[in-house]
């Protein structure tokens, strides 16, 4: 705690688009009261001041190279609470797509004969490197959920992250089901909390928030197959944000 009794908060970013930190900035536009309840000591994208004394660390981005692990471990050592901010940190997100091709091919495709200059390994969620206390899912995170999580933490409560599928929220929005429109959608197996924003704007759920704890994936695959999709199509849909999760599951089974 700082002298004024406010918890000190720091934001860090690894491999990501920094869109979740921008969403944090946008959330604070509507909730300036939070700024008086906490003290932000580090937020490189928005401020020059840099404090190393913090209790709560929000980490955006995946770990995609060995040399970033030390920085992550230092954050873990300092912070009492580490929160994975958004899909890249939580699940490795789109960064894990490169794991679908041999790593050397990926490196040569982008960097040609200089490919060895660029250090990289398979993208992983930060939990693969350090223990994580909580995750705020989503690509990007949902503004309201971020505010709810911060408020819960300030009250010493567990952050309210749902463990039921997007379909629940989609029904509440009175959306026409994407399957009724002849489209496929990962809402039935994906964690809610986004307000079903993609189906609400006419686009299928792409599972950016990851799967719920007990998704019925086999049944989901049957539904997708009934919709006339090939194994390749199904794999494409399932892997946009969840390549890491899907591969981990296969490895566990295998």
């Amino acid at each position: 705690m700082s002298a004024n009794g406010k918890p000190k908060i720091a934001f860090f970013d690894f491999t990501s688009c920094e869109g979740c930190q921008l969403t944090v900035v946008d959330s604070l536009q509507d909730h300036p009261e939070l700024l008086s309840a906490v003290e932000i000591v580090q937020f490189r994208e928005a401020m020059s001041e840099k404090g190393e004394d913090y209790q709560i660390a929000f980490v955006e981005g995946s770990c995609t190279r060995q040399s970033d692990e030390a920085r992550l471990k230092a954050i873990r050592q300092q912070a009492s609470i580490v929160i994975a901010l958004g899909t890249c940190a939580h699940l490795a997100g789109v960064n894990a797509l490169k794991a679908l091709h041999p790593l050397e091919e990926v490196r040569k495709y982008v960097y040609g004969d200089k490919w060895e200059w660029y250090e990289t390994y398979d993208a992983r969620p930060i939990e693969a490197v350090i223990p994580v206390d909580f995750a705020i899912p989503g690509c990007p995170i949902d503004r309201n959920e971020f505010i709810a999580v911060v408020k819960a933490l300030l009250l010493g409560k567990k952050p309210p992250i749902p463990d039921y599928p997007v379909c629940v929220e989609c029904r509440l929005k009175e959306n026409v089901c994407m399957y009724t429109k002849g489209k496929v959608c990962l809402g039935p197996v994906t964690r809610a909390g986004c307000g079903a924003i993609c189906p609400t704007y006419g686009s299928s759920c792409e599972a950016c928030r990851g799967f719920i704890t007990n998704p019925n994936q086999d049944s989901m695959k049957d539904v997708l197959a009934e919709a006339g999709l090939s194994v390749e199509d199904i794999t494409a849909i399932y892997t946009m944000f969840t390549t890491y999760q899907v591969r981990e599951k296969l490895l566990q089974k295998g």
Partner: protein
Amino acid sequence: MSKRIEVHHVTRVEGHGNIVVEVENGELKTCRFEVVETPRFFEAMLLGRPYHEASHITSRICGICATGHATASLRASEKALGVELSEQSWLLRKLTFHGEILDSHVLHVYMLVAPDFLGVGSVIPLVNSHPDVVLRALRMKKLAGDLCAMVTGRHTHPIAMTVGGFTHFPKMSELEAMRQRLIDSRKDVEATVELFSKLPWPEFERDTEYVSLSKPDEYAFIDGDILTSDGVRVPPERYKEVTNEFMVSHSTAKFTRNKRESLMVGALARFNNNYDLLHPKAKEAAAVLGMKPKVTNTFLNSAAQVVEIVHSTEDSIRIIEELLNRGVQPEEPAPIKHIPGEGVGVAEVPRGLLIHHYAIGEDGRITAANCIIPTNQNINNLEHDMRAWVPKVMHKPEPQMQLDLEMLVRAYDPCISCSVHVLKVQR
């Protein structure tokens, strides 16, 4: 006089970059802008993905210019597959694009640049010292975000844009309310011009080759030829003739150059190349800011962004009025005409010319992808600017010299997360 300035990492920019400058006995020895962001490999990640996923994947290159990446991506697929957008789709694409220009420019000029002139480390202390300025910035940023959200669901990352059109359509009542809010925002826009016209911009001139898109009848943000201030004009498909990339052994980045040692993209390049097509009110703002092309002070890139805030506000009002007059009808995305195909999509995102180039196979999957990012095109020019700027500031005390160098970097509004797919990591 010997000095070494190292800034790890420059703050109030998007992504991780370092400044390294060494002056020995009054002579500039080292001058680098290092990029230490992790490489991201987006082009390889697109391989084998269905084309309709590409805009949702590539918007994740950047949280700030997500709409710009999605737009360039969609144009690449649409050109590859012979898709012709409806007039309504064009209006909606342009409208949400303006929303992103406004969002990004307001963020940059108020929250990233202004603190340097007001002697503080971030926008947070300004809440107490300049509450009217901060509240205005927040109001303008919220409006820009809401404009994007009305059309595509959210600014980062847009949902409702798809190959051939849209999957969601704003209601007339939403358009009417947004029109009124934009009209009401004119006083904030005017106050912005006023504020930035009074800032003591550093004196610095270095002419370079300014590169932007160009269209005959509008200030180009989506599609158009690639035009340079040295008189080169090529269609997008021949982008490599202008953006030809090269490697240098001392540097972290693939660089670009065309006619000269370096080139510059972004708001200042657009202003210089397309001034005539700015909205009349934007030209008035330019006069208040003391700008007339050709402007060769790099620091005024931020002022050119202020001019574009005026332009995008006025053009958004015009587009919304057109949509209100003609009505908005839900429509299916325009069909693809042929497959396979290859296409180049171009857009002027907040930081400059963005190019997506895809080849799409018979099965609808991407077989080749290339993205050329504005910040990547600018880093070579930034280093040349730094070399010209250091001799002017090296007599100053180190903290002031460091700030002067950081301000030059921030003037480019670099977006490093975007650029790293072509940058070498140096340690």
